[in-house]
């Protein structure tokens, strides 16, 4: 098959017409610039292209990418909305929203620096998608030099064990300080129910107020009752419950890591 020079010229001209038309259509589709003055919203954050499991944008710390979504300054507040994107698998229960976003690396301490050198701090925890800084009322976006994360948390699986005698008042703690105390022991004719009070040391990071654990002996059934006193029940569904129970912690310890990561602004390099 041969292609004449004429066909090549036609292709070039046709391409130019198509390209010019498409560009004109896009240009024409662009809304007029009616945004509020530059002092209220800045800097512009480029759209993020998510290319699972990696992303073309944002800043990385360990296995988490922090992607800035928007940054708004005005009325004494600076708000940065962000998303956390994992570079790894998320929980096996991906279809379950309760566990879908449990990332082991999370931002905690933030610093916003103004061009006068003033540093304003803020803190976020595991459920936050926005960090808010209380800034002077007259501050606008042009006064912001940088926003950085200076402290992170890492979920460290500990698997701490605790052995408790099955008797009222018995108490213990896991390595992270979370506590468990036996409130009541109810002896039934064919079963034993042990009611426990448990408290998570860092509820803001575990996402719940009680310590979660499993029993070493599979004969114990566990029932968690969030938001109630005696918030955990152990049930031994046969006569003759063991005299002690070994609990193995499921929650990780949230270890702080100091690391300075610039989210908005220029690096020191």
């Amino acid at each position: 098959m041969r292609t004449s020079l004429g066909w090549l010229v036609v292709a070039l001209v046709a391409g130019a017409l198509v390209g010019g038309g498409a560009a004109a259509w896009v240009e024409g589709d662009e809304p007029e610039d009616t945004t509020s003055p530059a002092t209220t919203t800045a800097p512009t954050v480029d759209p993020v292209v998510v290319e699972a499991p990696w992303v073309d944008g944002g800043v990385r710390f360990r296995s988490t990418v922090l992607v800035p979504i928007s940054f708004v300054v005005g009325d004494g507040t600076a708000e940065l909305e962000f998303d956390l994107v994992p570079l790894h698998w998320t929980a096996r229960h991906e279809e379950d929203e309760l566990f879908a976003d449990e990332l082991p690396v999370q931002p905690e301490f933030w610093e916003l620096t103004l061009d006068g050198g003033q540093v304003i701090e803020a803190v976020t925890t595991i459920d936050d998608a926005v960090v808010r800084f209380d800034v002077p009322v007259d501050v606008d976006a042009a006064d912001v030099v940088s926003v950085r994360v200076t402290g992170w948390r890492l979920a460290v699986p500990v698997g701490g064990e605790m052995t408790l005698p099955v008797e009222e008042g018995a108490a213990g703690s896991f390595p992270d300080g979370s506590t468990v105390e036996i409130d009541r022991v109810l002896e039934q004719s064919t079963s034993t129910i042990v009611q426990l009070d448990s408290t998570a040391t860092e509820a803001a990071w575990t996402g719940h107020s009680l310590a979660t654990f499993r029993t070493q002996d599979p004969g114990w059934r566990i029932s968690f009752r969030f938001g109630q006193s005696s918030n955990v029940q152990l049930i031994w569904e046969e006569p003759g419950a063991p005299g002690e129970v070994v609990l193995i912690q499921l929650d990780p310890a949230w270890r702080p890591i100091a690391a300075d990561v610039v989210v908005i602004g220029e690096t020191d390099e």
Partner: protein
Amino acid sequence: MSDVEFDFAEILRSPLDPDPSDPSARPWGWAALLFLVGIVIGAWFVVATGDEAAAGVAVDTTAPGAPPAAEVIETSESFPEGYVAIATDVAVRAEAPVILGDRMLVPVTMVLRRGADATSVVRPLGGRWEMRTGQGVVASVGTVFDVFRPSVFSIEFPFVDPAPESVVLVERWDASPATAEVELAWPGVPFLSEEPISMELTEGTAVVITELELGNFLGGAAWRLEGTDLGVVELDADLLDEGGELFDSYASGSGSLDADAGAGTIEFFWAPGFRVDQDEASTLRLTARAELGIPVATEIEVPLP
């Protein structure tokens, strides 16, 4: 798992694409190329002239000195800086050890290779690690996983002082999926298995449900592997009606994650809409979803900070 590097250009080439060795395909390629060049020229002309027209009224909303995103993800590397590949699509980074009494835990985060499909990359079940110190070699005594965060784990060692500068993965346990299913008559709650239930996973391996109890709201199972000591098992418990249709399912809690224990337990919860009518079902269908471990000898050093 293979360590072969793929030629992505070859993989991405469609079988419908013309054979590049076929000379008859090339002239049309020139036409297509010029067509694309034309698109670019045309678009550039319109955009350039448009920019000139709008230059006088543009409003710059970007604050001086505050450009976004200082550190951009590397686009040319397969794994982020600081991570060491332990498999074709998986890399790890170790953190400073955590001392808990006579235990020393080395936290590790995992990442996937850039572009890898998270749903198709099978996570290694674990492995054996060593710390090499001036006094000799210290073997790991176990691995602690996080039920809700599958990309982080801790390697457990006995306490040593001073802490080593690195850990070495000496055996990786690759995961090989296998499933098995069995149906049992369902007499209603409480259900208590009278004898062990054996389910063949592969030729030579089976999972034996040694205990199974399903109640109104809670349940539990104990399992052990036969034919191998490496693997983890999850269990689905579905109730079927007389016609064989799904009636409802017990929700399975997270099972044991200790891949070298050869046995474990699973908790069940009956939660669907507070129904208490399980007795109307007639069949119990158990589905075991196992990941059997395949030991692979390695010698991969991961530095500690």
